[in-house]
């Protein structure tokens, strides 16, 4: 049997020294490279880190993706591992936090989820009290949500209202435009030969009156100037009078307030009057006492008078009874005299 035909050798293949060794090295190198790449990806995903779990509960987890970071002070300290729905209908965001970074989270830590206009919502942690106990593994916390894009409809409505107001303000028959037109007219009048006076008065006739009034006022002022000059002269004379009056006043001062002045006598007189008034007060006090006694006596007298009246009435009643008794006795007594008067 003839040997099988050999395959034709490649035309341009140069001989390679230690081909087998190099090929094996290449194989090993590529396998190592792939292995290192896989290990790096696993390390990057935190497969070799000890982790603890944090569960964040939110009303809405829209935009949150698995793998996104939980940041603290701008540094990523955790990664979203899972997003699920709770029995109450809330979103449960399960975050894996490496143990080495978990010391930044405390029992009192606050978690927020802020949605911007671009990008996924950002989950942030804030720890205000570093001395609080650390957050335990498996802790469940409510996350505070904020959505910038939710403000957009309100903002649009406000902008719409603002534009409507601006439109009404800037329309041709708007008060602002009318006012501006009036201002323009006024400015034009100001710049015209009529000037500010024409603007104020609006009428040439009235403006002329003002000018006439001003002229007259000027004349009046001139006359007043003359009068003032005269008054100055009079004032000089009055100054002299005042000086003399000052002297008189000084003398009067001495007469009134001096050592032998009126005021001193008046003081003595007042002192005497005070004494008399004191005596009179004492007398009046005694009179008061007398009057009170008199009042008492009068009171007693009144009572006695009242009693006397009653006594008198009783006495009269008694006397009447006695009289009636006497009359009865006289009627019934045989020796009673016939009191009947018989007329001839």
């Amino acid at each position, binding site marked *: 049997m003839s040997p*099988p*035909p050999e*395959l034709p050798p*490649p035309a341009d*293949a140069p001989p*390679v020294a230690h*081909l*087998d060794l*190099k*090929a*094996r090295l*290449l*194989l090993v190198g*590529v396998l190592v*490279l*792939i292995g290192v*790449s896989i290990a*790096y*990806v696993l*390390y*990057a*995903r*935190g497969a070799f880190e000890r982790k603890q779990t944090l569960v964040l509960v939110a009303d809405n987890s829209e935009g949150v993706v*698995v*793998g*996104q*970071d939980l940041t603290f002070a701008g540094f*990523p300290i955790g*990664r979203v591992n899972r997003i699920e729905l709770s029995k109450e209908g809330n979103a449960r965001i399960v975050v894996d936090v490496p143990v080495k970074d978990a010391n930044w989270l405390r029992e009192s830590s606050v978690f927020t989820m802020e949605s911007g206009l*671009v*990008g996924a919502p950002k989950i942030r942690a804030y720890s205000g009290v570093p001395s609080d106990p650390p957050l335990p593994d498996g802790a469940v916390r409510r996350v505070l949500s904020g959505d910038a894009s939710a403000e957009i409809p309100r903002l649009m409505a406000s902008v719409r209202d603002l534009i409507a107001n601006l439109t009404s303000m800037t329309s041709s028959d708007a008060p602002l435009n009318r006012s501006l037109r009036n201002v323009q007219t006024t400015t034009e009048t100001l710049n015209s030969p009529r000037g500010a006076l024409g603007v104020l008065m609006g009428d040439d006739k009235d403006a002329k009156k003002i000018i006439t009034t001003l002229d007259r006022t000027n004349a009046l002022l001139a006359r007043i100037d003359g009068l003032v000059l005269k008054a100055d002269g009079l004032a000089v004379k009055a100054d002299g009078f005042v000086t003399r009056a000052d002297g008189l006043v000084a003398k009067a001062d001495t007469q009134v307030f001096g050592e032998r002045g009126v005021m001193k006598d008046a003081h003595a007189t007042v002192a005497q009057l005070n004494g008399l008034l004191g005596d009179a007060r004492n007398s009046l006090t005694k009179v008061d006492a007398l009057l009170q006694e008199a009042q008492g006596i009068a009171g007693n007298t009144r009572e006695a008078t009242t009693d006397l009246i009653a006594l008198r009435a009783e006495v009269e009643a008694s006397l009447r009874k006695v009289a009636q008794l006497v009359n009865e006795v006289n009627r019934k007594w045989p020796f009673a005299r016939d009191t009947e008067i018989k007329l001839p």
Partner: protein
Amino acid sequence: MTLSARHPWVRALLDWSRGWWQVIRFGAQVLVLAMSPSSYRSSQRPRIVQSIYQATMPMLTGFVVLSAIAGLVIIRIVLATALSYGLSRYALDVLVRTLVLELIPLSAAMFAALRYAMPAGEQVRKMRMQGLFNTQLAAGLDPMRDTVLPRALAGMFAVITLAALSSATTLVLTYISVYGFSSWGLAGFTRTVGQVFNPVIVLIFGMKTFFLSMAVAIIPMVPTPREAGIGFGWAHAEVVRVARLLAVVLLIEMLSLVGNYY
């Protein structure tokens, strides 16, 4: 008269289907051979290793340098654009996703196809058409295992190696472009890479690279239905093969994008 004779479009459709079925069947055969332990016996191993080395090494340096230069240009463009819009914090994410996940596997596949897989496929087709396969079969050898498999494995290995090395180089260049030659940004950079490479994306990335390498290795080796025994139409056949390759690459790319982002 048959239906295909009456309607030429039916014949074209049948040819088209037959061609694709041939590709799928050939690919399945190569895959089975690649997963068979008997393909890696001590007599086979040197041939496979040699093919792998000869396929990969000549284009490794050139592709890495080329992809580094192109990568640097794209990195600068993306960083400058993101900075001008105030979105620089998203630049790293965009670079990792576009360069490492999408552009590099695609470019590695096309580069390996042009530099190795197409010529190797042409060799295999020629040998088949010259009857060398039949001769080897008659001699009790397996041309699929001895000729096709080493070249296919070499093509696949070349694509995967180029993609892996270029991805690593691009990540390093991205880090240097963003953070400079210091290690202060390593933690943040690692975190971002970890966020991008979640399990789904890693799986899709791996599968995409694998299927691209298979497409590049297999499709150039499969003759079109009209090629067998025909002395003319080579240029048309090459165009058809390139079109097939591009169609499959495009399909794989679309499926990976759907898997990643839909």
